[in-house]
């Protein structure tokens, strides 16, 4: 039941090819839409030439700003930051980044639409774009709104200058990271089908209800007229959190043509059109006494956004709560580039921010000649230093100690370049990790069916996170039946409303609703003196009650506990690298994540989640870099051969430990959510290991061989 390492209940569907992703619904009379993209980064379109495309065989329609159906408020009706989603909906002729959608070609067949899309020509009055982050830095300006609606953009506690003055050792360093593109394996896609004024969208999304509301607003139609279905999403990592242009374009064309239209992005179109982690330039100042006590921390982040929307990477939030330091300032600034708008990407904010903070802590440990874990323990935050609140639970101390023990931290040699194995320098490093434990309102319906099965429904999502499996376990546990008796249904706006599956929300929010609905059903059955432990007795019960399903619904909301406690997950990451002494190549050879992330519902899928997060972090650390031509704004490596996500050969043994933690405050189940934290801390752990191996401190991601080879400390 809960806590058992159950194999995925949707495993069979996934290994047989029967799991249906959104582009795979068989729909009659389907037409194919292919997006046409701009070839300049900034300017106005002065003319379209669509003649050749229109007369190309099989073409049903070609939409551009010249003839696209007009949307209420020019398509801006649903714009609401953060992750604002000011989309490209063919309502005007402005071009704001290279590759921006400027047209949609619809044809009978995919091949015909693809070919015809290549025939559309646009003329531009184009302007010089601002693409390069470094040269844009002077234009940085403070970000003013609250971050994610709730966190102040800048904070100050104590007296930073005094704290720095009182320090025996100081660190002052700048850390940079490039744009990181999500690249879920399933490209974004939508099938839009109208039946009169009713719209059905089969969409690859993390938020069916969000898509429903957004699309209703964009088209100015009642929400009740939109249904969104998403039974399986082939990876998302934040990039499918809200709809992008293609969803609206598919629906727009389907309405105008009165036939269903499918739009699937190409891999290349996943660069720029659907968000990414932005550039960050982080400035870190730390001050500490000889004994390691932090006297001052300053963390300023500049991140990039697009020219038309403000989206801020919440970089310094983790710094505010990580260590007990009374003098601290944090701030966020933005620069506007002529690129697509960024968005949430796995461990948004924490993944970037912890890189800088935990690298700087490592530098401080070197300066103080202290063990890095010792330094962290010296500044251990026994309560949230920002809010002053108690933690709902925190096992970071155990993460450090048990993780260190299992990893063999005590064998680490503090002196860089002191371990050599054949051609390689070997080094180990560590980092702390944290991510907020958040919860949102959620609802679920549990029904005992006439066939004796228990069907539990909640409009949440399966992104690979194991939602089908853990929700089945939660319901079966509450009802005291084996999981085979429970079927969990999700991904349909006809089911009870649930929040976005992002920010590690699902296990907490939907999990609680499913638990409460199942408990309510259990109580209802008990009140009827029923017994559902066998399928026969369950069937009898329904028959006795008149044959209608017996059901119970739960609407679960977080309460005052959210204000009374500070709720966060924590972890410690350990990495070992081997750096080739003559080539400077970095190979991760071992990694361990030790986590205090609340109650683990399913250790098998949870372990996979953490490993997946760590591998995502590995890509961010060593290989991923979205390259843009500074003159044209064109994405230079917009494919999977040149944008390097980790492959199997990059991955060594990865070990995961979960602390025995059941949070008494977060929710009745004691979970905290685990989707994001796996990616956090990996970058600093590896960067610190590279330093330990080579004596080279790389503060600029990704850590590629040129940054090591070219360094004076590396000369052999």
């Amino acid at each position, binding site marked *: 039941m809960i806590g058992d390492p159950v194999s995925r209940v949707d495993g069979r569907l996934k*290994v047989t090819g029967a799991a249906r992703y959104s582009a795979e619904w068989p729909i009659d009379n389907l037409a194919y839409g292919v997006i046409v993209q701009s070839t300049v980064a900034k300017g106005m379109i002065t003319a379209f030439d669509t003649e050749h495309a229109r007369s190309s065989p099989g073409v049903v329609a070609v939409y551009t700003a010249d003839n696209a159906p007009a949307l209420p408020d020019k398509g801006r009706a649903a714009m609401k930051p953060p992750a604002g989603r000011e989309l490209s909906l063919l309502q005007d002729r402005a071009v704001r980044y290279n590759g921006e959608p400027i047209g949609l070609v619809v044809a009978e067949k995919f091949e015909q639409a693809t070919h015809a899309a290549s025939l559309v020509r646009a003329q531009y009055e184009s302007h010089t774009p601002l693409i390069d982050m470094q040269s844009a830095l002077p234009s940085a300006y403070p970000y003013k709104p609250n971050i994610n609606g709730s966190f102040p953009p800048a904070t100050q506690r104590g007296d930073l200058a005094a704290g720095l003055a009182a320090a025996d050792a100081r660190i002052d360093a700048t850390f940079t990271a490039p744009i990181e593109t999500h690249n879920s394996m399933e490209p974004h896609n939508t099938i839009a089908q109208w039946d009169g004024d009713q719209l059905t969208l089969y969409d690859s999304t993390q938020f069916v209800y969000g898509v429903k509301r957004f699309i209703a607003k964009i088209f100015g139609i009642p929400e009740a007229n939109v249904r969104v279905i998403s039974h399986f999403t082939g990876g998302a990592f934040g990039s499918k959190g809200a709809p992008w242009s293609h969803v609206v374009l598919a629906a727009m064309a389907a309405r105008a043509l009165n036939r269903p239209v499918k739009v699937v992005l190409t891999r290349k179109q996943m660069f720029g059109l659907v968000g990414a982690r932005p550039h960050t330039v982080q400035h870190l100042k730390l001050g500490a006494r000889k004994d390691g006590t932090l006297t001052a921390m300053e963390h300023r982040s500049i991140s990039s956004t697009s020219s038309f929307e403000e989206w801020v990477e919440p970089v310094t939030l983790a710094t505010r709560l990580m260590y007990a330091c009374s003098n601290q300032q944090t701030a966020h600034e933005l620069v506007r580039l002529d690129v697509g708008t960024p968005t949430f990407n796995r461990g948004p904010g924490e993944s970037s921010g912890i890189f800088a903070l935990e690298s700087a802590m490592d530098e401080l440990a070197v300066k103080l000649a202290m063990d890095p874990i010792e330094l962290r323990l010296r500044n251990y935050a026994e309560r949230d230093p920002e809010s002053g609140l108690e933690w709902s639970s925190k096992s970071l101390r155990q993460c450090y100690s048990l993780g260190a023990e299992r990893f063999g931290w005590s064998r680490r040699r503090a002196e860089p370049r002191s371990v050599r194995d054949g051609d390689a320098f070997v080094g180990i490093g560590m980092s702390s990790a944290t991510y907020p434990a958040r919860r949102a309102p959620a609802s679920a319906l549990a029904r005992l069916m006439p066939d004796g099965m228990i069907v539990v429904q909640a409009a949440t999502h399966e992104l690979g996170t194991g939602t089908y499996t853990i929700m089945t376990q939660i319901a079966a546990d509450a009802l005291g039946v084996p999981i085979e008796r429970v079927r969990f249904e999700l991904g349909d706006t006809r089911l009870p409303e649930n929040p976005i599956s992002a920010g590690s929300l699902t296990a907490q929010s939907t999990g609680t609703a499913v638990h409460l609905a199942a408990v309510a059903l259990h109580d209802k059955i008990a009140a009827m003196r029923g017994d559902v432990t066998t399928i026969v007795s369950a069937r009898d019960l329904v028959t006795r009650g008149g044959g209608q399903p017996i059901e119970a619904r739960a609407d679960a909301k977080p309460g005052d506990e959210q204000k009374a406690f500070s709720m966060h997950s924590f972890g410690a990451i350990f990495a070992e690298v081997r750096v080739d002494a003559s080539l400077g190549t970095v190979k991760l050879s071992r990694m361990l994540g030790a986590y205090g992330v609340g109650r683990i519902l399913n250790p098998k899928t949870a372990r996979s989640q953490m490993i997946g997060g760590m591998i995502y972090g590995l890509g961010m650390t060593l290989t991923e870099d979205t390259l843009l031509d500074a003159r044209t704004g064109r994405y230079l490596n917009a494919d999977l051969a040149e944008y390097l996500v980790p492959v199997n050969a990059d991955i060594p043994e990865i070990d995961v430990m979960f602390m025995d933690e059941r949070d008494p405050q977060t929710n009745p189940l004691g979970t905290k959510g685990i989707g994001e934290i796996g990616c956090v801390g990996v970058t600093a752990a590896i960067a610190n290991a590279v330093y330990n191996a080579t004596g080279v401190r790389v503060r600029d991601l990704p850590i590629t061989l040129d940054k090591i080879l070219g360094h004076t400390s590396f000369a052999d």
Partner: protein
Amino acid sequence: MDDPNRREFIGTVVTTALASVLAPGTARADAASPHSPPGAPPPTLTPPPDIPVALTVNGTTVRLTLDPRTTLLDALRESMHLTGSKKGCDHGQCGACTVHLNGRRVLACLTLAVMAQDQPVTTIEGLARGDTLHPMQQAFIDRDGLQCGYCTPGQIMSAVALLNEPCGPADDDVRECMSGNICRCGAYPNIVAAVQDVRTATARG
């Protein structure tokens, strides 16, 4: 600086090479079209008419009428509704579309449907025997070698093909042999474990 003559030479080679692989009627395709100055006229290119294609997939022969540009992957997914084979990149860079052609793994997105005629194609849908999963499918479930599942059919088709390939015995060998299949969810360690389970069982069996 680029030597202009060298550039021209490369341009010529590319254009000629492209012209020679494209079907008749496409010779005037402009190889430089994606980089044409804005407003340049589009290339004139008359797509060829549909042609009959017979595919034998998972033991069943199906006759289709396809645009000759149709890839095996799109024929499977869009015309035959065999959507188990996935499209991750359409460029031979991710492995999501891996199927077996004559028992060997190929990338269905890099194989035109017409090229796959007269050869048996096996997809993920054809791997199980009735209700009995192929041992590799079962091993992926047991070892949790999947998360979102989108790369999974391709991973499994590669893994099954690997059993008959000269892949070394070590985990590192498997990692190398499976590196044509990208998994963004990061199921790699569990995939290696699944493959090794099946190899050990097969060796014993």
